[in-house]
């Protein structure tokens, strides 16, 4: 047996595996910090999927057509599924789902701050799909190659389902942009409100990001925040132009030399305030999740009690 291996040796072998692109599986030895970082990242990700259901869920009952209602329902349901896959992945690291969720409810755990913004019009359903799911996909595709097996596989499943989310959103926005003046205005107003928060989704600038370097070395992160943000801007700006909407950034312009867009400064004060709990909807989002859990308690208890009783009966 190999119990004698020193921590240094184990860490060395662990890093060699990662460098050789061999997936780490739940049973494998891993550094404590790797486990902790992953649990934090995966559960944050799971929370974002679940809290992310709320701003869009806000419009399901008001969707303007049968088709839109069904698509939105299916989309929000997908996000519930994503949350579930991710909680499952976190459970393989020993993170119990209920405890993980309690951390969200107590404010200990974070989630994507974009979901603390309100959905004020139908156009927001389009903009969220287009920008927020678009940004999420950009973050998530590299994670399909993450070094931790269960997370990578969960992300493959998520990305497969995610592909229609952005398209349905862009379709909604396009329809509005080509519609009546009221509709066009609705679309532009929505873009104005969501553009900057979407850019913030990629996280703090690389210079200020605490986790990036170690996470890149462990391959639980594959690109830096700023790289992904730039990629997002470069892809999205022409899409907005195509449908005749204006990106609300006076400093936005094409940089021929970089073959990329230069864009204005993000309001990091706002970003930090929203993360600290001062966004327009932070309290409401957590309250909704807490209520769901609290109101469902008697249901979960009943199901368990019934299962117990039945087991007893069978045993007799």
């Amino acid at each position, binding site marked *: 047996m190999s119990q004698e291996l020193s921590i240094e040796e184990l860490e060395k072998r662990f890093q060699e595996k990662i460098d050789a692109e061999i997936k780490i599986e739940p049973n494998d030895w891993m550094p404590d910090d790797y486990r902790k970082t992953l649990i934090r990242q995966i559960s944050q990700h799971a929370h974002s999927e679940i809290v992310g259901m709320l701003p869009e869920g806000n419009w399901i009952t008001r969707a303007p057509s*049968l088709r839109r209602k069904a698509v939105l329902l299916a989309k929000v349901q997908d996000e519930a599924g994503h949350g579930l896959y991710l909680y499952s992945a976190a459970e393989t690291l020993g993170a119990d789902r209920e405890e993980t969720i309690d951390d969200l409810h107590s404010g200990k755990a974070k989630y994507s701050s974009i979901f603390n913004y309100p959905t004020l019009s139908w156009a927001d359903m389009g903009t969220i799909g287009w920008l927020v799911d678009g940004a999420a996909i950009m973050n998530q595709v590299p994670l399909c190659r993450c070094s931790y097996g269960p997370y990578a596989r969960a992300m493959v499943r998520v990305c497969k389902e995610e592909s229609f989310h952005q398209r349905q959103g862009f379709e909604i926005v396009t*329809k509005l942009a080509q519609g009546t003046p009221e509709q066009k205005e609705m679309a532009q107003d929505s873009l104005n409100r969501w553009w900057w928060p979407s850019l913030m989704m990629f996280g703090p600038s690389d210079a200020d990001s605490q986790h990036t370097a170690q996470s890149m070395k462990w391959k639980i992160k594959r690109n830096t925040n700023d790289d992904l943000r730039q990629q997002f801007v470069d892809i999205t700006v022409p899409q907005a132009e195509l449908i005749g909407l204006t990106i609300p950034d006076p400093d936005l312009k094409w940089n021929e030399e970089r073959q990329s867009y230069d864009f204005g400064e993000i309001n990091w004060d706002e970003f930090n305030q929203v993360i600290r709990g001062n966004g327009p909807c932070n309290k409401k989002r957590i309250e909704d999740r807490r209520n769901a859990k609290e109101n*469902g308690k008697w249901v979960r208890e009943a199901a368990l009690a019934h299962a117990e009783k039945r087991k007893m009966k069978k045993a007799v």
Partner: protein
Amino acid sequence: MEEKKALFEYLLRLGDDSLILGQRLSEWCGHGPILEEDIAMTNIALDLIGQATNLFEYASSLGVDKRSADELAFVRYEKDYRNLLLVEQENTDFGYTLARQFLFDAFRKPFFEALSQSSDQQLAAIAEKSLKETKYHLQHSSEWMIRLGDGTDESHERIQQAVNQLWAYTEEIFEQDQIDQQLIQAGIAVDLSVIRASWTKQVQAVFSEAGIDLPQNTWQQKGGRQGKHTEHMGYLLAEMQFMQRAYPQMEW
């Protein structure tokens, strides 16, 4: 009445049942008692919205008037909706939602079984597809009725309470009028008096396993099929029709 007109009316009744219940269920999305159940309820809501879409599209295609499926779904006045009072009742809690669902599913399954034999090919096809979905719904709601009835004192109390309250809307399910009679004659519609026994059997079986008492002598509320709704309906429609009313005549 001209047969086409009767069929149109019949389709609205079926479509409204699915639409309004789907609308109610979709209110749960993001607020379910546990993630898995949230997903399950959304699936049922999706099935119901899908059924409503098929039924309204068929109704619209009959050419009785010029309204599209979406216009039928979203821009009628309250008095022109034909759904059962049962399906418009508020969610209240998971117990009410489940009891409402169960009482409806127990009707819908034998109903679609019979309707899939309709002489109207298109209606039969819609019924066949809906039947597959409804079997899942009924299994889901039956199992939950038993869990809640048998589970804890609290859950038993709550589900019995919900059944007692909703029982007043069960007679209406089997009401028939001239439109039913006419379409039954033509082999198109389902004779509700025939499937009633099957509903009763299912309800009794599940109640007995769940330890739920069958309510007795409940005064019955009716009127949904004639457009006389409960107070909840106006609020449901205000929400559902919001976009169509605030921005009339636009495409989305």
